């Protein structure tokens, strides 16, 4: 079961993701470079956070046109698991692999804080380790995390169970007061219609190793691993 972490100039959460797969899950993981056109035999791709291409123009605007992203799209079209975290989410929306876009935080400030989230749909390849309605803690660190999509798109996503995580308080209550960045419907993470591409602003990789104080995020990667093991067989 090989994992790939896609690197762009300016990615800065790649090592955290690599660490989780390598040391926490104990699975083979490799770095992929944005100029690669062949992604090798990976079974899952993580697009990490950071400031790809310095976030110039818009976050993800230049990165999504990299050669590797063509290969990532082909990989996803064949059902491969792709997760974009923070800047990775921005890149996936720019690539139109996920609907909507991430606008500047409503309060203008860069947000770097612990955040509680409510799991909205635990019936996916990325969230099966959780219970729907569970409250988990992942840190956030972003300036453009204000999720926006047209009302019609939002309504469809809500109906299809495509909202995976919502910002909430410690009791799991969702309101304007618990929404850190102004995202529509407090959306923190989404999944595509076919259930194999996820984007989320919060950082599960920063809360996956108990030594860091929080390990709620590990469930995302374990869910993916279990899905892959079921799909491909345990010894692949």
């Amino acid at each position, binding site marked *: 079961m090989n994992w790939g972490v896609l690197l762009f100039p300016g990615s800065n959460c790649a090592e955290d993701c690599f660490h989780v797969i390598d040391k926490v899950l104990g699975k083979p993981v490799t770095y992929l470079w944005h100029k690669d056109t062949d992604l090798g035999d990976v079974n899952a791709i993580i697009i990490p956070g950071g400031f790809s291409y310095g976030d110039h*123009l*818009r976050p993800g*605007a*230049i990165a999504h*046109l990299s050669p590797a992203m063509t290969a990532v799209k082909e990989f996803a079209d064949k059902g491969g698991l792709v997760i974009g975290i923070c800047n990775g989410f921005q890149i996936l*929306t*720019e690539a139109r692999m996920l609907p*909507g*876009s991430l*606008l*500047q*935080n*409503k*309060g*203008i400030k860069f947000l770097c804080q612990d955040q509680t989230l409510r799991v909205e749909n635990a019936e996916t390849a990325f969230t099966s380790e959780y219970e729907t309605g569970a409250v988990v803690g992942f840190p956030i660190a972003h300036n453009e995390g204000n999720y*926006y*999509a047209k009302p019609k798109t939002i309504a469809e996503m809500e109906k299809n169970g495509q909202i995976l995580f919502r910002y909430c308080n410690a009791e799991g209550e969702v309101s304007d007061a618990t929404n850190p960045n*102004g995202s529509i419907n407090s959306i923190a993470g989404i999944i595509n219609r076919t259930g194999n591409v996820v984007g989320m602003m919060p950082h599960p990789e920063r809360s996956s190793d108990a030594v860091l104080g929080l390990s709620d995020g590990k469930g995302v990667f374990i869910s993916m691993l279990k899905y892959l093991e079921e799909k491909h067989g345990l010894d692949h």
Partner: protein
Amino acid sequence: MLKAIVTVMLKKGIFDPQGRAVQNGLESIGFEGIGSVRVGKQIEIVLDTQDQANAEASVHKMCDKMLANPVVESYSFEIVEA
């Protein structure tokens, strides 16, 4: 040589926090009667051509492919002598 002056703005109806901050700033130093402020980007591209039609077609492609995100932004441009 021609120069394209591209303006990219958030679409109407999408909240622009930067514009609001600028508006608050202007009002705080005493400017009155400001309806709203929106902040966009201006991108200048010098093109190695004298052909107006070619330049326009090329800049449209640049905008559609990278310079603007049609989900949240609109763009316009003019072509002038560089």
